[in-house]
Protein backbone atom coordinates (compact mmCIF):
# COMPACT_ATOMS: atom_id res chain seq x y z
CA UNK A 1 0.00 0.00 0.00
CA UNK A 2 2.70 2.48 0.98
CA UNK A 3 4.80 1.55 -2.07
CA UNK A 4 1.77 2.18 -4.27
CA UNK A 5 1.23 5.61 -2.72
CA UNK A 6 4.90 6.51 -3.06
CA UNK A 7 5.06 5.35 -6.67
CA UNK A 8 1.90 7.29 -7.52
CA UNK A 9 3.48 10.34 -5.96
CA UNK A 10 6.76 9.91 -7.83
CA UNK A 11 5.00 9.43 -11.18
CA UNK A 12 2.91 12.55 -10.70
CA UNK A 13 5.93 14.39 -9.32
CA UNK A 14 7.85 13.74 -12.54
CA UNK A 15 5.10 15.49 -14.47
CA UNK A 16 5.06 18.38 -11.98
CA UNK A 17 8.81 18.70 -12.40
CA UNK A 18 8.51 18.93 -16.17
CA UNK A 19 5.76 21.57 -15.88
CA UNK A 20 7.86 23.65 -13.52
CA UNK A 21 11.03 23.34 -15.58
CA UNK A 22 9.81 25.70 -18.29
CA UNK A 23 8.52 28.23 -15.80
CA UNK A 24 11.70 28.07 -13.74
CA UNK A 25 13.86 28.62 -16.84
CA UNK A 26 11.92 31.70 -17.98
CA UNK A 27 11.82 33.07 -14.45
CA UNK A 28 15.52 32.49 -13.83
CA UNK A 29 16.75 33.94 -17.11
CA UNK A 30 14.27 36.75 -17.81
CA UNK A 31 13.02 37.46 -14.29
CA UNK A 32 9.43 37.06 -15.46
CA UNK A 33 6.81 34.96 -13.70
CA UNK A 34 4.89 33.60 -16.61
CA UNK A 35 1.31 33.50 -15.34
CA UNK A 36 0.34 32.21 -18.78
CA UNK A 37 2.50 29.11 -18.30
CA UNK A 38 -0.52 26.87 -17.72
CA UNK A 39 -2.06 28.14 -20.94
CA UNK A 40 0.94 26.85 -22.87
CA UNK A 41 0.57 23.51 -21.11
CA UNK A 42 -3.07 23.56 -22.21
CA UNK A 43 -2.06 24.37 -25.80
CA UNK A 44 0.37 21.44 -25.76
CA UNK A 45 -2.43 19.18 -24.57
CA UNK A 46 -4.80 20.37 -27.32
CA UNK A 47 -2.28 20.12 -30.15
CA UNK A 48 -1.73 16.54 -29.01
CA UNK A 49 -5.48 16.01 -28.98
CA UNK A 50 -5.71 17.38 -32.52
CA UNK A 51 -2.87 15.30 -33.91
CA UNK A 52 -4.46 12.25 -32.30
CA UNK A 53 -8.09 12.70 -33.35
CA UNK A 54 -7.51 14.28 -36.77
CA UNK A 55 -4.50 12.30 -37.97
CA UNK A 56 -4.27 9.39 -35.56
CA UNK A 57 -0.71 10.26 -34.51
CA UNK A 58 0.34 8.66 -31.23
CA UNK A 59 0.90 11.25 -28.46
CA UNK A 60 4.34 9.87 -27.68
CA UNK A 61 5.29 10.69 -31.28
CA UNK A 62 3.39 13.96 -31.66
CA UNK A 63 5.00 15.35 -28.51
CA UNK A 64 7.87 16.50 -30.75
CA UNK A 65 5.49 18.25 -33.15
CA UNK A 66 3.70 19.99 -30.26
CA UNK A 67 7.00 21.12 -28.79
CA UNK A 68 8.20 22.60 -32.10
CA UNK A 69 4.88 24.38 -32.73
CA UNK A 70 4.64 25.84 -29.24
CA UNK A 71 8.34 26.77 -29.34
CA UNK A 72 7.66 29.11 -32.23
CA UNK A 73 4.51 30.47 -30.59
CA UNK A 74 6.49 31.29 -27.46
CA UNK A 75 9.37 32.70 -29.52
CA UNK A 76 7.10 35.18 -31.31
CA UNK A 77 5.06 36.09 -28.22
CA UNK A 78 8.31 37.08 -26.51
CA UNK A 79 9.64 38.89 -29.58
CA UNK A 80 6.53 40.93 -30.36
CA UNK A 81 4.75 41.35 -27.01
CA UNK A 82 6.72 40.63 -23.86
CA UNK A 83 9.92 42.24 -25.12
CA UNK A 84 8.31 45.68 -24.90
CA UNK A 85 7.88 45.55 -21.12
CA UNK A 86 10.81 43.38 -20.16
CA UNK A 87 12.57 46.19 -18.31
CA UNK A 88 9.44 47.35 -16.50
CA UNK A 89 8.49 46.61 -12.90
CA UNK A 90 7.31 43.32 -11.48
CA UNK A 91 3.58 43.75 -11.70
CA UNK A 92 3.74 45.20 -15.21
CA UNK A 93 5.25 41.98 -16.54
CA UNK A 94 2.89 39.91 -14.41
CA UNK A 95 -0.08 41.82 -15.78
CA UNK A 96 1.08 41.39 -19.34
CA UNK A 97 1.39 37.65 -18.79
CA UNK A 98 -2.11 37.75 -17.33
CA UNK A 99 -3.42 39.50 -20.46
CA UNK A 100 -1.77 36.85 -22.61
CA UNK A 101 -3.37 34.16 -20.48
CA UNK A 102 -6.87 35.63 -20.89
CA UNK A 103 -6.31 35.88 -24.63
CA UNK A 104 -5.04 32.31 -25.09
CA UNK A 105 -7.62 30.73 -22.80
CA UNK A 106 -10.55 32.47 -24.41
CA UNK A 107 -9.32 31.73 -27.92
CA UNK A 108 -9.09 28.10 -26.82
CA UNK A 109 -12.64 28.24 -25.46
CA UNK A 110 -13.77 29.60 -28.81
CA UNK A 111 -11.97 26.91 -30.82
CA UNK A 112 -12.45 23.86 -28.66
CA UNK A 113 -15.52 24.81 -26.52
CA UNK A 114 -15.62 24.30 -22.77
CA UNK A 115 -16.30 20.54 -23.09
CA UNK A 116 -13.85 18.23 -21.38
CA UNK A 117 -11.94 16.11 -23.91
CA UNK A 118 -9.60 13.17 -23.56
CA UNK A 119 -6.98 11.34 -25.58
CA UNK A 120 -7.77 7.60 -25.46
CA UNK A 121 -4.77 5.62 -26.64
CA UNK A 122 -5.29 1.89 -27.34
CA UNK A 123 -2.79 0.85 -24.67
CA UNK A 124 -4.35 3.21 -22.10
CA UNK A 125 -5.68 0.39 -19.92
CA UNK A 126 -2.46 -1.62 -19.68
CA UNK A 127 -0.71 -1.99 -16.30
CA UNK A 128 2.53 -3.38 -15.07
CA UNK A 129 3.41 -4.50 -11.55
CA UNK A 130 6.50 -3.40 -9.68
CA UNK A 131 7.10 -4.37 -6.01
CA UNK A 132 3.43 -5.23 -5.60
CA UNK A 133 2.30 -1.80 -6.87
CA UNK A 134 0.11 -1.53 -9.97
CA UNK A 135 1.34 1.08 -12.41
CA UNK A 136 -0.54 2.18 -15.55
CA UNK A 137 1.90 1.90 -18.46
CA UNK A 138 1.03 5.36 -19.86
CA UNK A 139 1.95 6.95 -16.56
CA UNK A 140 5.28 5.18 -16.54
CA UNK A 141 5.93 6.22 -20.18
CA UNK A 142 5.00 9.78 -19.31
CA UNK A 143 7.33 9.76 -16.32
CA UNK A 144 10.25 8.37 -18.33
CA UNK A 145 9.65 10.91 -21.09
CA UNK A 146 9.54 13.71 -18.52
CA UNK A 147 12.94 12.55 -17.26
CA UNK A 148 14.24 12.33 -20.83
CA UNK A 149 13.12 15.88 -21.66
CA UNK A 150 14.74 17.21 -18.51
CA UNK A 151 18.02 15.41 -19.31
CA UNK A 152 18.01 16.93 -22.81
CA UNK A 153 17.34 20.35 -21.34
CA UNK A 154 20.16 19.80 -18.87
CA UNK A 155 22.56 18.92 -21.70
CA UNK A 156 21.50 21.95 -23.75
CA UNK A 157 22.00 24.26 -20.79
CA UNK A 158 25.38 22.89 -19.70
CA UNK A 159 27.14 21.56 -22.78
CA UNK A 160 26.20 23.80 -25.71
CA UNK A 161 27.02 27.31 -26.83
CA UNK A 162 23.33 28.20 -26.62
CA UNK A 163 23.17 27.07 -23.00
CA UNK A 164 26.23 29.14 -22.12
CA UNK A 165 24.72 32.15 -23.84
CA UNK A 166 21.45 31.71 -21.94
CA UNK A 167 23.23 31.33 -18.64
CA UNK A 168 25.45 34.33 -19.19
CA UNK A 169 22.42 36.42 -20.19
CA UNK A 170 20.76 35.41 -16.96
CA UNK A 171 23.82 36.37 -14.93
CA UNK A 172 24.73 39.68 -16.47
CA UNK A 173 22.87 41.21 -19.37
CA UNK A 174 25.49 43.80 -20.26
CA UNK A 175 28.47 41.46 -19.98
CA UNK A 176 26.71 38.94 -22.22
CA UNK A 177 25.97 41.67 -24.75
CA UNK A 178 29.60 42.83 -24.72
CA UNK A 179 30.71 39.30 -25.49
CA UNK A 180 28.66 39.22 -28.64
CA UNK A 181 25.51 37.54 -27.40
CA UNK A 182 22.36 38.75 -29.16
CA UNK A 183 20.42 39.23 -25.94
CA UNK A 184 17.04 39.83 -27.57
CA UNK A 185 17.32 36.61 -29.53
CA UNK A 186 18.43 34.65 -26.46
CA UNK A 187 15.38 35.92 -24.56
CA UNK A 188 13.10 34.80 -27.38
CA UNK A 189 14.77 31.39 -27.59
CA UNK A 190 14.61 30.97 -23.81
CA UNK A 191 10.93 31.82 -23.76
CA UNK A 192 10.40 29.43 -26.68
CA UNK A 193 12.21 26.61 -24.87
CA UNK A 194 10.18 27.30 -21.74
CA UNK A 195 6.87 27.09 -23.62
CA UNK A 196 8.03 24.04 -25.58
CA UNK A 197 8.76 22.22 -22.32
CA UNK A 198 5.34 23.32 -21.06
CA UNK A 199 3.83 21.86 -24.24
CA UNK A 200 5.62 18.57 -23.59
CA UNK A 201 4.12 18.48 -20.10
CA UNK A 202 0.73 19.24 -21.65
CA UNK A 203 1.05 16.32 -24.04
CA UNK A 204 1.83 13.92 -21.20
CA UNK A 205 -0.97 15.41 -19.11
CA UNK A 206 -3.45 14.83 -21.97
CA UNK A 207 -2.54 11.13 -22.16
CA UNK A 208 -3.29 10.62 -18.47
CA UNK A 209 -6.00 13.14 -17.49
CA UNK A 210 -9.01 14.78 -19.20
CA UNK A 211 -8.30 18.21 -20.70
CA UNK A 212 -10.25 21.48 -21.00
CA UNK A 213 -9.39 25.04 -22.08
CA UNK A 214 -9.44 26.23 -18.46
CA UNK A 215 -7.10 23.55 -17.10
CA UNK A 216 -4.12 25.92 -17.20
CA UNK A 217 -4.71 28.13 -14.16
CA UNK A 218 -4.48 25.26 -11.72
CA UNK A 219 -1.31 23.97 -13.40
CA UNK A 220 0.30 27.42 -13.34
CA UNK A 221 -0.16 27.45 -9.57
CA UNK A 222 1.30 23.95 -9.27
CA UNK A 223 4.31 25.00 -11.35
CA UNK A 224 4.81 28.00 -9.07
CA UNK A 225 4.75 25.84 -5.97
CA UNK A 226 7.21 23.36 -7.44
CA UNK A 227 9.58 26.10 -8.59
CA UNK A 228 9.56 27.70 -5.16
CA UNK A 229 9.92 24.46 -3.21
CA UNK A 230 12.84 23.33 -5.36
CA UNK A 231 14.55 26.69 -5.42
CA UNK A 232 15.14 29.01 -8.33
CA UNK A 233 18.22 29.06 -10.49
CA UNK A 234 19.31 25.44 -10.26
CA UNK A 235 18.55 22.84 -12.89
CA UNK A 236 17.81 20.20 -10.26
CA UNK A 237 15.39 22.47 -8.39
CA UNK A 238 12.25 21.64 -10.37
CA UNK A 239 13.04 17.93 -10.19
CA UNK A 240 13.47 17.95 -6.41
CA UNK A 241 10.46 20.25 -5.98
CA UNK A 242 8.27 18.22 -8.32
CA UNK A 243 9.05 14.88 -6.73
CA UNK A 244 8.64 16.26 -3.18
CA UNK A 245 5.29 17.82 -4.03
CA UNK A 246 4.11 14.68 -5.81
CA UNK A 247 5.00 12.42 -2.89
CA UNK A 248 3.66 14.76 -0.18
CA UNK A 249 0.38 15.23 -2.06
CA UNK A 250 0.03 11.52 -2.59
CA UNK A 251 0.62 10.81 1.12
CA UNK A 252 -1.54 13.72 2.23
CA UNK A 253 -4.55 12.89 0.11
CA UNK A 254 -4.30 9.32 1.28
CA UNK A 255 -4.39 10.39 4.94
CA UNK A 256 -6.74 13.37 4.82
CA UNK A 257 -8.77 12.89 1.63
CA UNK A 258 -8.52 14.51 -1.77
CA UNK A 259 -10.27 17.75 -0.77
CA UNK A 260 -7.12 18.61 1.17
CA UNK A 261 -4.78 18.41 -1.83
CA UNK A 262 -4.62 22.18 -2.38
CA UNK A 263 -4.46 23.01 1.32
CA UNK A 264 -1.45 20.71 1.67
CA UNK A 265 0.46 22.06 -1.31
CA UNK A 266 -0.14 25.73 -0.50
CA UNK A 267 0.63 25.29 3.17
CA UNK A 268 3.96 23.76 2.16
CA UNK A 269 4.50 26.67 -0.21
CA UNK A 270 3.93 29.31 2.45
CA UNK A 271 6.04 27.43 4.99
CA UNK A 272 8.93 26.97 2.57
CA UNK A 273 8.73 30.66 1.65
CA UNK A 274 8.83 31.73 5.27
CA UNK A 275 11.55 29.40 6.53
CA UNK A 276 13.61 28.71 3.41
CA UNK A 277 12.73 31.40 0.89
CA UNK A 278 15.37 30.22 -1.57
CA UNK A 279 13.96 26.72 -1.79
CA UNK A 280 15.25 23.34 -0.68
CA UNK A 281 18.29 23.53 -2.95
CA UNK A 282 18.64 27.29 -2.92
CA UNK A 283 21.71 29.00 -1.56
CA UNK A 284 21.67 31.95 0.79
CA UNK A 285 22.04 35.23 -1.03
Amino acid sequence: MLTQILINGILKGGLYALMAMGMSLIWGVMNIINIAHGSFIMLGAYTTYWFFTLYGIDPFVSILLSMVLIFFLGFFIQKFIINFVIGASLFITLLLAFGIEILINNLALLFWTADVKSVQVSYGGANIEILGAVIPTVRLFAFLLAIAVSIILFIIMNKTWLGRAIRSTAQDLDAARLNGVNVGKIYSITFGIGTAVAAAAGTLWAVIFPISPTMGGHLTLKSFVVTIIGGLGTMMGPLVGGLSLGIVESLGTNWFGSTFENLISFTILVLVLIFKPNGILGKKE
Partner: protein
Amino acid sequence: MKGTLIGFALIIIIGVFVPFTAGNFTIRLATDIVIFAILASSWNIIGGYTGYASFGNIVFFGVGAYATAVLMSKAGLGFYPALILSGLIAGLYGFAIGFPILRLKGHYFAIATLGLAEATKALVQNLGLTEGNSGMYLPMPEMGIDASYMFFYFNALGILLLLLVIMYFILNTKLGYGFVAIREDEDAADSIGINTTIFKSISFGLSGLFTGMAGSVYAYQQGFIKPEPVFIVTKTVKMIVMAVFGGVGSLFGPVIGAVSIELIANYLSEHFLVIHTIFFGTIVILAVIFAPKGIMDIITARKKLGLSYFLENIRKNRV
Protein backbone atom coordinates in the same frame (compact mmCIF):
# COMPACT_ATOMS: atom_id res chain seq x y z
CA MET B 1 -4.56 69.88 -2.86
CA LYS B 2 -6.91 71.58 -5.30
CA GLY B 3 -6.86 68.49 -7.52
CA THR B 4 -7.72 66.27 -4.55
CA LEU B 5 -10.72 68.43 -3.62
CA ILE B 6 -11.97 68.33 -7.20
CA GLY B 7 -11.52 64.57 -7.18
CA PHE B 8 -13.58 64.12 -4.01
CA ALA B 9 -16.26 66.52 -5.27
CA LEU B 10 -16.54 64.64 -8.56
CA ILE B 11 -16.86 61.24 -6.86
CA ILE B 12 -19.55 62.54 -4.47
CA ILE B 13 -21.54 64.38 -7.14
CA ILE B 14 -21.41 61.59 -9.74
CA GLY B 15 -21.78 58.91 -7.07
CA VAL B 16 -24.94 60.42 -5.59
CA PHE B 17 -26.32 61.46 -8.96
CA VAL B 18 -26.21 58.01 -10.60
CA PRO B 19 -28.89 56.08 -8.66
CA PHE B 20 -31.54 58.78 -9.03
CA THR B 21 -31.28 58.85 -12.80
CA ALA B 22 -31.21 55.17 -13.59
CA GLY B 23 -32.99 51.86 -13.23
CA ASN B 24 -32.04 48.99 -10.96
CA PHE B 25 -29.84 47.39 -13.60
CA THR B 26 -27.62 50.46 -13.74
CA ILE B 27 -27.55 50.77 -9.95
CA ARG B 28 -26.42 47.16 -9.72
CA LEU B 29 -23.69 47.79 -12.28
CA ALA B 30 -22.65 50.93 -10.39
CA THR B 31 -22.50 48.91 -7.15
CA ASP B 32 -20.17 46.39 -8.81
CA ILE B 33 -18.00 49.23 -10.09
CA VAL B 34 -17.80 50.86 -6.64
CA ILE B 35 -16.91 47.51 -5.03
CA PHE B 36 -14.13 47.07 -7.57
CA ALA B 37 -12.99 50.63 -6.88
CA ILE B 38 -12.69 49.70 -3.18
CA LEU B 39 -10.72 46.56 -4.05
CA ALA B 40 -8.36 48.40 -6.42
CA SER B 41 -7.85 51.28 -3.96
CA SER B 42 -7.19 48.84 -1.11
CA TRP B 43 -4.66 46.98 -3.24
CA ASN B 44 -3.09 50.36 -3.97
CA ILE B 45 -2.29 50.80 -0.25
CA ILE B 46 0.02 47.77 -0.12
CA GLY B 47 0.94 47.49 -3.81
CA GLY B 48 1.02 51.12 -4.88
CA TYR B 49 2.16 53.09 -1.85
CA THR B 50 4.19 50.51 0.04
CA GLY B 51 5.46 48.76 -3.07
CA TYR B 52 4.66 45.16 -2.15
CA ALA B 53 2.76 43.56 -5.04
CA SER B 54 0.20 41.36 -3.30
CA PHE B 55 -1.28 38.73 -5.56
CA GLY B 56 -3.51 37.35 -2.86
CA ASN B 57 -5.61 40.34 -1.82
CA ILE B 58 -8.73 38.37 -2.70
CA VAL B 59 -8.13 36.47 0.54
CA PHE B 60 -9.40 39.52 2.50
CA PHE B 61 -12.47 39.74 0.31
CA GLY B 62 -13.23 36.09 1.01
CA VAL B 63 -12.52 36.40 4.73
CA GLY B 64 -14.78 39.47 4.95
CA ALA B 65 -17.56 37.74 3.03
CA TYR B 66 -17.38 34.59 5.15
CA ALA B 67 -17.06 36.51 8.42
CA THR B 68 -20.26 38.37 7.56
CA ALA B 69 -22.03 35.16 6.61
CA VAL B 70 -21.04 33.46 9.86
CA LEU B 71 -21.76 36.49 12.04
CA MET B 72 -25.16 37.16 10.50
CA SER B 73 -26.53 33.65 9.97
CA LYS B 74 -24.92 31.86 12.94
CA ALA B 75 -24.38 34.59 15.53
CA GLY B 76 -27.51 36.51 14.55
CA LEU B 77 -25.81 39.90 14.29
CA GLY B 78 -27.23 42.79 12.30
CA PHE B 79 -25.58 43.95 9.09
CA TYR B 80 -23.65 46.95 10.40
CA PRO B 81 -22.04 45.20 13.38
CA ALA B 82 -21.18 42.32 11.04
CA LEU B 83 -19.75 44.73 8.46
CA ILE B 84 -17.47 46.43 10.99
CA LEU B 85 -16.39 43.16 12.61
CA SER B 86 -15.72 41.56 9.23
CA GLY B 87 -13.54 44.48 8.21
CA LEU B 88 -11.63 44.23 11.50
CA ILE B 89 -11.20 40.46 11.17
CA ALA B 90 -9.86 40.78 7.61
CA GLY B 91 -7.65 43.68 8.68
CA LEU B 92 -6.23 41.78 11.64
CA TYR B 93 -5.66 38.78 9.41
CA GLY B 94 -3.62 40.97 7.07
CA PHE B 95 -1.74 42.61 9.96
CA ALA B 96 -0.88 39.29 11.62
CA ILE B 97 0.01 37.44 8.44
CA GLY B 98 2.08 40.42 7.38
CA PHE B 99 4.77 39.76 9.97
CA PRO B 100 6.06 36.51 8.45
CA ILE B 101 5.34 37.03 4.76
CA LEU B 102 6.26 40.70 4.38
CA ARG B 103 9.87 39.68 4.97
CA LEU B 104 9.76 38.26 1.45
CA LYS B 105 10.49 40.51 -1.47
CA GLY B 106 9.36 40.91 -5.07
CA HIS B 107 8.22 37.74 -6.77
CA TYR B 108 8.49 35.72 -3.59
CA PHE B 109 6.07 37.98 -1.76
CA ALA B 110 3.69 37.93 -4.72
CA ILE B 111 3.62 34.17 -4.70
CA ALA B 112 3.41 33.78 -0.95
CA THR B 113 0.25 35.92 -0.97
CA LEU B 114 -1.14 33.86 -3.82
CA GLY B 115 -0.41 30.69 -1.87
CA LEU B 116 -1.96 32.19 1.25
CA ALA B 117 -5.18 32.97 -0.63
CA GLU B 118 -5.36 29.45 -2.04
CA ALA B 119 -4.59 27.86 1.34
CA THR B 120 -7.28 29.98 3.04
CA LYS B 121 -9.78 29.01 0.36
CA ALA B 122 -8.92 25.35 0.84
CA LEU B 123 -9.36 25.80 4.60
CA VAL B 124 -12.80 27.39 4.18
CA GLN B 125 -13.72 24.52 1.86
CA ASN B 126 -12.97 22.06 4.64
CA LEU B 127 -14.25 23.80 7.78
CA GLY B 128 -17.52 22.88 9.43
CA LEU B 129 -18.16 26.48 10.48
CA THR B 130 -18.19 27.66 6.86
CA GLU B 131 -20.12 24.60 5.64
CA GLY B 132 -17.44 23.58 3.15
CA ASN B 133 -18.14 23.58 -0.54
CA SER B 134 -21.92 23.71 -0.19
CA GLY B 135 -21.83 27.43 0.58
CA MET B 136 -23.68 29.63 3.10
CA TYR B 137 -26.95 31.53 3.04
CA LEU B 138 -27.25 34.99 4.58
CA PRO B 139 -30.46 36.51 5.95
CA MET B 140 -32.46 38.50 3.38
CA PRO B 141 -32.43 42.30 3.82
CA GLU B 142 -35.78 43.40 5.28
CA MET B 143 -36.67 45.99 2.68
CA GLY B 144 -38.21 46.32 -0.75
CA ILE B 145 -36.27 45.39 -3.90
CA ASP B 146 -35.76 48.97 -5.03
CA ALA B 147 -34.68 50.05 -1.56
CA SER B 148 -32.18 47.20 -1.33
CA TYR B 149 -30.48 48.24 -4.59
CA MET B 150 -30.05 51.74 -3.14
CA PHE B 151 -28.95 50.31 0.22
CA PHE B 152 -26.08 48.27 -1.19
CA TYR B 153 -24.99 50.98 -3.58
CA PHE B 154 -24.76 53.66 -0.91
CA ASN B 155 -23.04 51.35 1.57
CA ALA B 156 -20.39 50.53 -1.01
CA LEU B 157 -20.01 54.19 -1.93
CA GLY B 158 -19.70 55.11 1.75
CA ILE B 159 -16.90 52.59 2.25
CA LEU B 160 -15.08 53.88 -0.84
CA LEU B 161 -15.28 57.48 0.40
CA LEU B 162 -14.19 56.44 3.90
CA LEU B 163 -11.21 54.62 2.40
CA LEU B 164 -10.19 57.58 0.25
CA VAL B 165 -10.57 60.13 3.07
CA ILE B 166 -8.61 57.98 5.53
CA MET B 167 -5.88 57.37 2.97
CA TYR B 168 -5.76 61.06 2.12
CA PHE B 169 -5.07 61.91 5.74
CA ILE B 170 -2.69 59.00 6.33
CA LEU B 171 -0.57 60.04 3.35
CA ASN B 172 0.25 63.30 5.08
CA THR B 173 1.35 61.66 8.33
CA LYS B 174 4.52 59.86 9.33
CA LEU B 175 2.76 56.59 8.54
CA GLY B 176 2.07 57.58 4.95
CA TYR B 177 5.57 58.92 4.40
CA GLY B 178 6.83 55.65 5.85
CA PHE B 179 4.87 53.62 3.28
CA VAL B 180 6.36 55.60 0.42
CA ALA B 181 9.84 55.50 1.95
CA ILE B 182 9.64 51.71 2.14
CA ARG B 183 8.59 51.58 -1.51
CA GLU B 184 11.44 53.81 -2.64
CA ASP B 185 14.23 52.27 -0.56
CA GLU B 186 13.47 49.92 2.28
CA ASP B 187 17.00 49.80 3.71
CA ALA B 188 17.23 53.58 3.78
CA ALA B 189 13.81 53.78 5.45
CA ASP B 190 15.00 51.32 8.05
CA SER B 191 18.18 53.29 8.69
CA ILE B 192 16.33 56.54 9.38
CA GLY B 193 14.39 54.88 12.16
CA ILE B 194 11.21 53.66 10.47
CA ASN B 195 10.11 50.36 11.96
CA THR B 196 9.57 48.82 8.53
CA THR B 197 8.11 45.56 9.85
CA ILE B 198 5.28 47.32 11.70
CA PHE B 199 4.69 49.82 8.89
CA LYS B 200 4.41 47.11 6.27
CA SER B 201 2.05 45.09 8.43
CA ILE B 202 -0.14 48.14 9.05
CA SER B 203 -0.25 48.77 5.31
CA PHE B 204 -1.26 45.16 4.66
CA GLY B 205 -3.80 45.37 7.51
CA LEU B 206 -5.39 48.54 6.10
CA SER B 207 -5.57 46.91 2.71
CA GLY B 208 -7.26 43.92 4.33
CA LEU B 209 -9.67 46.07 6.37
CA PHE B 210 -11.29 47.77 3.39
CA THR B 211 -11.16 44.72 1.13
CA GLY B 212 -12.89 42.77 3.90
CA MET B 213 -15.63 45.39 4.18
CA ALA B 214 -16.18 45.19 0.43
CA GLY B 215 -16.45 41.41 0.78
CA SER B 216 -18.97 41.92 3.56
CA VAL B 217 -21.25 44.13 1.43
CA TYR B 218 -20.85 41.72 -1.48
CA ALA B 219 -21.89 38.72 0.66
CA TYR B 220 -25.00 40.45 2.03
CA GLN B 221 -25.94 41.60 -1.44
CA GLN B 222 -25.54 38.12 -2.95
CA GLY B 223 -27.42 36.41 -0.10
CA PHE B 224 -25.49 33.21 -0.78
CA ILE B 225 -21.73 32.64 -1.00
CA LYS B 226 -19.46 29.74 -1.95
CA PRO B 227 -15.67 29.39 -1.55
CA GLU B 228 -14.79 29.19 -5.25
CA PRO B 229 -16.25 32.53 -6.44
CA VAL B 230 -15.33 34.67 -3.40
CA PHE B 231 -11.72 33.50 -3.35
CA ILE B 232 -11.24 33.54 -7.12
CA VAL B 233 -7.67 34.43 -8.14
CA THR B 234 -8.72 36.29 -11.27
CA LYS B 235 -10.43 38.91 -9.11
CA THR B 236 -7.10 39.71 -7.45
CA VAL B 237 -5.55 40.13 -10.84
CA LYS B 238 -8.48 42.29 -11.90
CA MET B 239 -7.98 44.68 -8.99
CA ILE B 240 -4.31 45.00 -9.90
CA VAL B 241 -5.18 45.56 -13.56
CA MET B 242 -7.54 48.33 -12.48
CA ALA B 243 -5.01 49.97 -10.18
CA VAL B 244 -2.29 49.85 -12.83
CA PHE B 245 -4.65 50.94 -15.60
CA GLY B 246 -5.71 53.96 -13.60
CA GLY B 247 -2.38 54.77 -12.02
CA VAL B 248 -0.52 53.01 -9.21
CA GLY B 249 0.38 55.03 -6.13
CA SER B 250 -2.09 57.84 -6.70
CA LEU B 251 -5.24 58.41 -4.64
CA PHE B 252 -7.78 58.43 -7.46
CA GLY B 253 -5.92 56.32 -10.03
CA PRO B 254 -7.41 52.99 -8.93
CA VAL B 255 -10.93 54.50 -8.87
CA ILE B 256 -10.51 55.78 -12.42
CA GLY B 257 -9.10 52.40 -13.41
CA ALA B 258 -12.00 50.49 -11.86
CA VAL B 259 -14.63 52.69 -13.49
CA SER B 260 -13.05 52.61 -16.95
CA ILE B 261 -12.22 48.88 -16.96
CA GLU B 262 -15.67 47.89 -15.74
CA LEU B 263 -17.39 50.18 -18.23
CA ILE B 264 -15.25 48.83 -21.08
CA ALA B 265 -15.85 45.23 -19.99
CA ASN B 266 -19.58 45.87 -19.66
CA TYR B 267 -19.78 47.55 -23.06
CA LEU B 268 -17.88 44.72 -24.70
CA SER B 269 -20.00 42.02 -23.11
CA GLU B 270 -23.19 43.77 -24.22
CA HIS B 271 -22.09 44.22 -27.82
CA PHE B 272 -19.74 41.32 -28.48
CA LEU B 273 -20.99 38.61 -26.17
CA VAL B 274 -18.92 35.72 -27.52
CA ILE B 275 -15.56 37.38 -27.99
CA HIS B 276 -15.61 40.10 -25.36
CA THR B 277 -13.13 38.30 -23.12
CA ILE B 278 -10.67 38.14 -26.02
CA PHE B 279 -11.06 41.89 -26.43
CA PHE B 280 -10.49 42.28 -22.70
CA GLY B 281 -7.24 40.34 -22.85
CA THR B 282 -6.12 42.46 -25.80
CA ILE B 283 -6.93 45.68 -23.94
CA VAL B 284 -4.90 44.54 -20.93
CA ILE B 285 -1.92 43.75 -23.18
CA LEU B 286 -2.12 47.04 -25.09
CA ALA B 287 -2.59 49.12 -21.95
CA VAL B 288 0.38 47.50 -20.25
CA ILE B 289 2.64 48.01 -23.28
CA PHE B 290 1.61 51.53 -24.27
CA ALA B 291 0.68 53.15 -20.96
CA PRO B 292 2.34 51.25 -18.12
CA LYS B 293 1.97 54.24 -15.80
CA GLY B 294 -1.79 54.40 -16.14
CA ILE B 295 -4.42 56.96 -17.03
CA MET B 296 -3.54 59.28 -14.12
CA ASP B 297 -0.09 59.77 -15.62
CA ILE B 298 -1.60 60.60 -19.01
CA ILE B 299 -3.90 63.16 -17.36
CA THR B 300 -1.18 64.80 -15.26
CA ALA B 301 1.51 64.66 -17.97
CA ARG B 302 -0.67 66.44 -20.51
CA LYS B 303 2.19 68.35 -22.10
CA LYS B 304 3.83 65.30 -23.62
CA LEU B 305 0.62 63.65 -24.71
CA GLY B 306 0.54 62.40 -28.26
CA LEU B 307 2.02 59.52 -30.16
CA SER B 308 5.46 60.23 -28.71
CA TYR B 309 4.19 59.60 -25.17
CA PHE B 310 3.24 56.04 -26.04
CA LEU B 311 6.32 55.39 -28.16
CA GLU B 312 8.56 56.55 -25.35
CA ASN B 313 6.95 54.00 -23.01
CA ILE B 314 7.70 51.26 -25.50
CA ARG B 315 11.31 52.26 -26.06
CA LYS B 316 12.10 52.62 -22.39
CA ASN B 317 11.45 49.05 -21.26
CA ARG B 318 12.67 47.16 -24.31
CA VAL B 319 15.82 45.05 -24.33
